[in-house]
């Protein structure tokens, strides 16, 4: 195996150990560990057996296996970014809802006749 294959294999192994540790600490959900485990197993497979990418590349109509991996990598990054954006959006909305509760709780005594001219 070439050095790059060893680097990819070790990286995938470390990443998978981190995923399992995250799952044990309750930071990664069951469907999360499935997704990440499949992903890092695929990375390990490509590292050990690079020619395997040719099979999928030919099937997808791409000449080189490395190109297929690159394209899939880009797609994965875009997918993760999109997912991250959605989560951020949800957190922001939840935060705004909480802030609203606090603002309404601390609102001045509710009256139908607040006067903009103060105590007159």
């Amino acid at each position, binding site marked *: 195996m070439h050095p790059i294959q060893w680097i990819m294999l070790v990286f995938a192994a470390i990443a998978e150990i981190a995923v399992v540790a995250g799952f044990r600490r309750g930071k990664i959900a069951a469907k999360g560990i499935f997704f990440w485990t499949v992903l890092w197993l695929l990375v390990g497979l490509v590292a050990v057996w690079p020619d395997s990418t040719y099979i999928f590349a030919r099937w997808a109509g791409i000449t080189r296996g490395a190109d297929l991996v690159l394209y899939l990598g880009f797609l994965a990054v875009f997918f993760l970014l999109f997912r991250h*954006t959605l989560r951020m959006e949800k957190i922001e*909305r939840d*935060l705004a809802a909480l802030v609203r509760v606090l*603002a309404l709780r601390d*609102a*001045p005594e509710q009256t*139908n006749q607040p006067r903009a001219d103060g105590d007159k």
Partner: protein
Amino acid sequence: MTVTASVSTVSSPECGAGRPDGEYILIPAFNEAGKIGEVIAGLSACGYTRVVVVDDGSRDDTAGRARRAGAVVLRHPINCGVGAATATGLAYLSNVGAVAAATFDADGQHDPRDLAAVFAPIYDDGADVVIGSRMLNPEGMPRVRRIAQRLASWSTFLLFGQWSTDSQSGLKAFSRRAIGTIQLKTNRYEVCSEIIAEIRRRKLVMREVPVRAIYTAYSLSKGQGFTVGLKTLARLFIDRILHW
């Protein structure tokens, strides 16, 4: 189409006292200490004495100045955005049983003398939401802003199916029904388009009246610039895709 949306041509009368009980002005504000007192004083001079300011986590003395000017002040402990502040204000107005309310920008862009015309279709014409449209009276409006407003209105129409000549206007009046019905989820400037979408979704009656925007160096520095406008558009598209 079930939504009634037409353009009224109510002219802008001069100020006058004796506004109906339960009529409120809602001002979302962020870092407007330099202007908020003047804006509230202008409203008060025009007879609009029931003013609610939602201070959206300002780092300056916006809340203090608004309170000293006589407004009821609600405070967001952190900055959440104009949409979140508007939603907080509407929730408060619903709680106090407001009969009508108008949103008003804190940067001095709006003329209090336009408010009577904006409120009129609520009382006289059964309208639920009245848009104070700058595009029906575009005199003095910078060309870039005019183009941006047209783009925003068309985008809103394509995404939500409801036409408004000025979807991004900050000067809008709401009936009691609209105050209690409209549910806002977006936090930032996309709230303007969300209100237009809610009008259609809740089958509310919409009217538009011409208003005059006051463009100063200060008011132009606030609000949606080009970059913020693009971000707003992107957020609207994402929101539409998610809630198709």
